[in-house]
């Protein structure tokens, strides 16, 4: 039996139940998860939350928070809103991070790069309000300690892993991203000072690129598949590898020393991955300003459907964010039929 009582309301009954300004999408969903997913109360609240067919924001709904975009009740949820001000990074860190971003993905107002797309704002939001952005992670120890020659090099309590094998285990860090950014940015400036006597942001672009090349090469050395040892010659591979590493071991070792407890290559990889996210995640997350990231690659974003003809011929659709995308399944005010695949009785928290 379906719990048809939950959401068969017609258009009339909907119009009077626009959520007030205090009832944000997240607060609705948070209360839902407390109540249990598919209870009658939950269904009613969700019905109140579906967008009005007459307009993207719903009659009288405050744009931005009351769209009623329903997300499955799983954490994390997208942030309510991302302020323009920086909350985690201090001014000097923003200047440094943007200097790095402007080399990772250069741009200007006509051809936006990472800075113009708001990637620093994305990263700051991720660090200040982690839960919507957090990578699901198992954070309990013991953690790995790598050794070059003998397991005895590894401190007590850590799991000894040969350095050349460590990349195969994936992420094994123990530090939260906030700490990695704080330490990594400071280390980047230290390294710039060591190499060229100036802060990273004050270097000319060529020297900035030179430093990022070192970080990139350090990352490749740490994960390079051509460093496989002890498995026989047939193990040599070019899968995913970038070929020869340009920077000498001496230079990489020096960078490692200056960076101290943060891995230069690990820091580079983290910033690069966050940059890609900040360019291409939905603008609800704080980056991808004016959908510039999606325009760069020609992705139309959150489209509801494509036709078989478009699959062959292409499309001229313009990028659109997920915000305000009308619900596909009907059961919304202003028309449509009752959604077919609704909750059935017999499922509930145990």
């Amino acid at each position, binding site marked *: 039996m379906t719990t048809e009582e939950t959401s068969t309301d017609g258009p009339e009954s909907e119009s009077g139940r626009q959520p007030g300004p205090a009832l944000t999408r997240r607060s609705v969903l948070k209360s839902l998860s407390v109540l249990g997913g598919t209870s009658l109360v939950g269904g009613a609240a969700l019905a109140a939350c579906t967008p009005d067919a007459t307009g993207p924001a719903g009659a009288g709904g405050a744009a931005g928070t009351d769209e009623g975009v329903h997300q499955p009740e799983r954490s994390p949820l997208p942030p309510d809103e991302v302020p323009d001000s920086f909350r985690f990074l201090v001014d000097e860190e923003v200047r440094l991070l943007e200097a790095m971003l402007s080399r990772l993905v250069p741009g200007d107002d006509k051809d936006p790069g990472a800075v113009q797309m708001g990637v620093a704002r994305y990263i700051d939001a991720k660090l200040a309000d982690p839960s919507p952005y957090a990578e699901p992670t198992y954070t309990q120890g013991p953690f790995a300690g790598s050794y070059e020659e003998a397991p005895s090099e590894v401190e007590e309590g850590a799991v000894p892993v040969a350095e050349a094998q460590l990349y195969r285990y994936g*992420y094994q860090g123990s530090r939260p991203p906030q700490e990695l950014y704080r330490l990594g940015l400071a280390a980047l400036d230290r390294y710039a000072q060591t190499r060229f006597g100036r802060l990273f942001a004050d270097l000319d672009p060529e020297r900035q690129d030179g430093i990022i090349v070192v970080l990139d090469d350090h990352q490749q050395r740490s994960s390079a598949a051509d460093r496989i040892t002890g498995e026989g010659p047939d193990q040599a591979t070019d899968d995913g590898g970038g070929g020869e590493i340009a920077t000498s071991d001496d230079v990489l070792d020096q960078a490692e020393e200056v960076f101290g407890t943060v891995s230069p290559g690990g820091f580079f990889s983290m910033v690069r991955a966050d940059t890609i996210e900040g360019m291409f995640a939905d603008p609800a997350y704080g980056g991808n300003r004016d959908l510039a990231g999606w325009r760069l*690659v020609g992705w139309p974003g959150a489209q509801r459907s494509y036709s078989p003809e478009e699959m062959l011929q292409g499309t001229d659709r313009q990028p659109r964010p997920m915000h305000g995308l009308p619900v596909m399944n009907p059961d919304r005010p202003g028309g449509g039929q009752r959604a077919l695949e609704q909750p059935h009785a017999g499922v509930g928290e145990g």
Partner: protein
Amino acid sequence: MRRHDPVDIVTIGGGMSASILASQLLPPTSLQMVSLEQGPAQWTYPDFAHNHDSLRFRNRYAMMQDISRTTWTWRPDARSPSLPYRQFGSFHPGEGLGGSMVHWTALTWRFLPDDFRYRSVNEERYGSDRIPAEMTTQDWPVGYEDLEPYYDQLEYDMGVSGTAGNLGGQILPGGNPFEGERKSPYPNPPLARSKFGGRFTEACGDLDLHPFPTPAGILSQGYTDRYGNTRAGCLYCGFCTRYGCEVGAKTSPLTTWLPPALDTGRYEVRTGCRVLRIETAHDGRATGVRYVDSRGEEHVQPAEVVVCSAFTLENVRMLLLSTGSAHPDGIGNDRGQVGRNYTYQLVKSPAKGLWRDEKFNFFMGNGCTNAQVYDYNADNFDHSSLNFLGGAAISADAGQREPISSSDALLDGFVDRQWGADWKTMLGRSWDRIGSIGIEGDSPAYAGNFLDLDPTYRDEWGLPMLRITFDWRENERNMYRFLAARCEEILRAMSPDRVSVSTELAPYRIDQYQSTHPTGGAIMGRDPSDSVTNSYGQVWDTPNVFVTGAALYPQNPGANPSGTVGALALRTAEALRDRYFAHPGELL
């Protein structure tokens, strides 16, 4: 501790095979069944109504198991240390009502007749000395002809879209000529073809290969199944793998088997429940399961039959965790067979091309809007003069590309640095102009690849995690080298302007997504001396415990496992319904 009234069947996990069992067992009987699901309830509507958030679903794995609470550990070999799988990489087990089948890609295969006779076929054709000493592959206790009726039912339950290649022994044009003989055609025509898939199909035709559209558990048109579920066809929106389908075109337990099962009123799914162990009596029989709910309260659910219907890895772990006086090493493990023959899937994209003047609309469609060839899969080609056994399906890139996950490595091999002005310019110009040819290969079993309980790492409930010991072997490296060359031939026949080929198979690494196809570890067989269960998934040493899913596979062929998971579940459901309850506790 709360003790519930006994039921006939309790399942650990509320996913694909649990819903199949419930839909087949309950409507014609008076049986009662409970499923314990670790994740939340979720439904097509409203839960998937607004889900086009690629950061959240594609890149933050919103539908996957919560690995902050429990995960798995891995090591490449028994000499190396194990470490936890701390972030998602190699595989993505789901959680929530419907399980992994809600977020799946939906390739729906029948395994080939030869796949069920892997050892015999290779010994007969090439001699037993061609099978490496460490390789522990073995024949299945069922053959293709045994499973054909269940494959047939599964395809019609799901409304699978595809083109038949061997209908009643007649080879049909446009289908897979290597498939086993099928009684019926697919219930729905194939999905719309993508531009890149079309190119691949033409090129393979030119090379005298036999391309065919990917069989998909995604509706190509409106369809009403035998349970009365009416569903809409695919909208090719491009948000498919790792998302729930907002129109129900992608088949899952939610769209298909849960409605008839729940309509009986004799099926209950308790969400947010984590099973701790299967309880056993002194005589060795299972009596039920012990679990904790989302508030941390402990429960016992007694049942006549206990089914391990969770993901492969958790099924194996549950058997090992369920020790008792009669089963000191865990259920099914009286002869030390649990954990053996852990296998995976060799999924790679060896050859990548760039077309300067052509876009392919890779962001549309789904993971099945492509085409495949089976000419180099299994033993469909002569291995007499080759240095490996087995093979792989070869396919073109499908659809659903989105920029966060694709931009990381798309330009590898085409630009020196994966950042900077050149990278940005090329990404902007080429994001939709680069496509690859991939393989999905078989994974033979080896004595050195196995599952057991980790001695160090424990989950949030204090229970040992499962430890995976796995790496590729010489056979797979040789197979990969051969297949990469075939991929390159096909790619070049598609006339790209630039080509990048990875010619060698790198060692297994757990941080790169390959497939959610961990298989084996609680394998089925003809004899308790070399298997954990019989062909019904019934545990030899504890006959009122059943295992469903891909943990039963003696080794993994070159195809996605879900079609056979479904067929086996239908067969087990029939045996339970028609025979088991007449003689409970006896081997089927």
